[in-house]
């Protein structure tokens, strides 16, 4: 495979997907999140009922990530009874109980010290509120990951995580699933002297993180540490972020 010799990749740039990759949602157990919220609202007697309603939404839309991306208003209305404070607490608890992927910080330390540029490439299609107030930015800041990631690339644009401003609107409206975000990214990297063969994308989803990137000449690593979404065009597969220390080397 191009650029891969015995599981060694020489790269200048490494992009990471967000959901189920650098961020693991496994800590968002309903009894914990809904339980904490109800107790903080002084309504512990409503925990079981609200968990049940959240399960109903899950069955309606086929997954909690789908509810949060497309039907967040129904969480607030149907599960939390339009309680304004409950909504605030839900946003806060989501952040509090999200985890980072196993071995991530150690791997990022290694990559940064090796001089490999790091960016988050997320399929964050819509966001409410000011730049920098989205769930991805807040997660990166709250976990100290802005030490490693200075920018966030998404269909909202390329965003500086230090200043909370859009620094490149060329990305606006471009998606991972459509592949065009990788076209813009490829041009962006070339302008910085980085060919796609010197850039690797790490993510869990074949349809958004791996295949469209691979088709545009990026090296790709499929991360299966949290979830295995099946075969892809990935050059390599890893189950733990520590494997990146064995695989990635700084080119040049």
């Amino acid at each position: 495979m191009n650029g891969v010799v015995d599981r060694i990749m020489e790269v200048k740039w490494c992009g990471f997907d967000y959901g189920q990759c650098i961020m693991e949602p496994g800590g968002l157990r309903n009894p914990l999140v809904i339980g904490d919220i109800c107790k903080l609202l002084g309504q512990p007697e409503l925990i079981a009922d609200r968990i049940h309603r959240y399960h109903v939404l899950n069955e309606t839309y086929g997954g909690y990530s789908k509810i949060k991306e497309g039907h967040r208003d129904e969480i607030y209305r149907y599960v939390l009874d339009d309680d304004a404070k409950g909504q605030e607490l839900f946003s806060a608890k989501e952040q509090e109980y999200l985890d980072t992927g196993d071995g991530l910080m150690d791997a990022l330390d290694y990559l940064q010290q090796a001089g490999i540029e790091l960016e988050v490439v997320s399929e964050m299609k819509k966001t409410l509120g000011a730049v920098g107030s989205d769930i991805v930015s807040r997660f990166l800041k709250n976990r100290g990951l802005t030490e490693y990631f200075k920018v966030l690339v998404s269909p909202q644009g390329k965003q500086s995580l230090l200043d909370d401003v859009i620094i490149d609107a060329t990305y606006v409206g471009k998606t991972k699933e459509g592949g065009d975000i990788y076209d813009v990214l490829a041009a962006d990297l070339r302008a910085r002297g980085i060919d796609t063969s010197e850039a690797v994308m790490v993510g869990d989803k074949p349809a958004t993180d791996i295949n469209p990137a691979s088709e545009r000449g990026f090296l790709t690593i499929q991360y299966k540490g949290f979830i295995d979404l099946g075969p892809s065009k990935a050059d390599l597969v890893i189950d733990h972020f520590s494997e990146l220390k064995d695989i990635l080397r700084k080119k040049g």
Partner: protein
Amino acid sequence: MSDRKPTTLTIEYDDGSSRSIDFSSLPGLLQFDILRQPFTLDMDEVRAGGSGKFLVLEWEDGWREVYGLDASAEAIARYYVVSRNEDIGRVAVKKEGYPEYIEIMRRPLSVRRIALGGSYALEAAASRREGKKTEHMYDLVDDGDLVAELREAFAAAAAEQGLEPASVSRLTGEELRLTLEAVRERMKLVAGASEQDVLAFLVSLSEGGV
């Protein structure tokens, strides 16, 4: 909770009728659940300091919780944690509005058939791991007619009691309840959540419905 003891729980219906029950005869957890609802909040009892006995817990992340205890509580006997893989079956039923959601706690990996508008065998399909959780998906494959089998079993059970199936639903009140319970036991059929549901199901079988 209040030191005063509730005596009766009454439900009033929109047709003017009502049902009452001796509160102490309700399941203990249900009594607790009712008495922790906000409408029973007794501020005089709060002002009096409740039972005077409380359990307080503190977590590593600073989270703290209080549980009220019986006035006779003396000391903590033990604290322990049980870690175990739990299997929980989930049934989603399409209906008007949001789906109905039912959790199956009894050996969910051993459910063989499921029936609603058809009778289906559960065939193991893909298993999907997400972190520490694994979801085992199932395909629904047409398999016989579970309800027809139950209809035949009902007829047989009714016959053992000297009854024609259709005559069962003509009974009323306590006689109907006792008859249905006897038939249910012979059929080895139970309610998942509400005894009224399984009894109504048997009446439907007797009338050829379902």
